[in-house]
């Protein structure tokens, strides 16, 4: 990428179809915590790949990443 050497302070993400911003360097675990969710009760898909719960703190987000955060709801 031939962009400004100074990274943008905020990353632009898509979380559950909505735009979302977070500090550069944040991990998925940081995102889940920032939103206020209990990681034990949700599952995360990162750019169409499952992000195992044990790895959430290791995956650093990048600008343009797309995430789905789901949980169990009532259903038949």
């Amino acid at each position, binding site marked *: 990428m031939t962009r400004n050497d100074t990274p943008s302070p905020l990353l632009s993400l898509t979380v559950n179809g909505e735009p979302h911003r977070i500090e550069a360097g944040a991990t998925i675990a940081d995102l889940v915590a920032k939103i206020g969710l209990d990681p034990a009760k949700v599952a995360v898909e990162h750019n169409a790949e499952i992000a195992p719960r044990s790895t959430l703190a290791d995956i650093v987000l990048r600008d343009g990443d797309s995430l789905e955060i789901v949980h169990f709801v*009532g259903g038949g």
Partner: protein
Amino acid sequence: MTDTASAPAPTTPADAADTWTVAGRTFTSRLIVGTGKYKDFEQNAAAVEASGAEIVTVAVRRVNVSDPKAPMLTDYIDPKKITYLPNTAGCFTAEDAIRTLRLAREAGGWDLVKLEVLGEARTLYPDMRETLKATEILAKEGFLPMVYCVDDPIAAKQLEEAGAVAVMPLGAPIGSGLGIQNQVTVRLIVEGAKVPVLVDAGVGTASEAAVAMELGCDGVLMNTAIAEAKNPVRMALAMRLAVEAGRHAYLSGRMAKRRYADPSSPLSGMI
């Protein structure tokens, strides 16, 4: 029951422990209940309790990012006590269903799932081509799919060969409450299956749950019949009793049908 066919001879005494096993997990209750359409979580939890169900179906959906502290189903129905069976409701392709269940496995940490791949919104009839494809892929990925399907004995065998750990034919369209429309095909599926057979969808009231069990099904799965009753908790109890009654009737081996009367009191000794 149809015409004069009698149920197969019972193989288990009715008073013995009558459990059923799916993919190596053994359950006592033969009633699986859904967790959709309830007024609130309290009513849902009370209905599950009254139903005696050991398995509940659940859907996988996006969390509400703007309201992360909203109550969750898991706060009311404890997944450590009740087996959560994640479904793929709303999925119209094998790809969507598989994606949903991969997330479900990550969220819940278990492999037993309910696969349903729908063909159209109006009838919610299963798309069997996609269902079969998804079953094969899920089985290869180590899932244990219990599969919602058409009431077709050949399709049921194909699902079993593809790795379905249970086949779950519809009795009538999802949410219709029309009862079991084709008892012959459900019976044929039961007779041909080596895996558990559960009627999934179509039951509207208790007698219809009993019919499913009298046909020899291993269990019944329902949601709307309980959730949309005027008194869901009482209907949950009714369904529990109906499933038990139908099971006992099946194991008892019903009497043969006659075309005309046969008195129950002696004909001799009349005054």
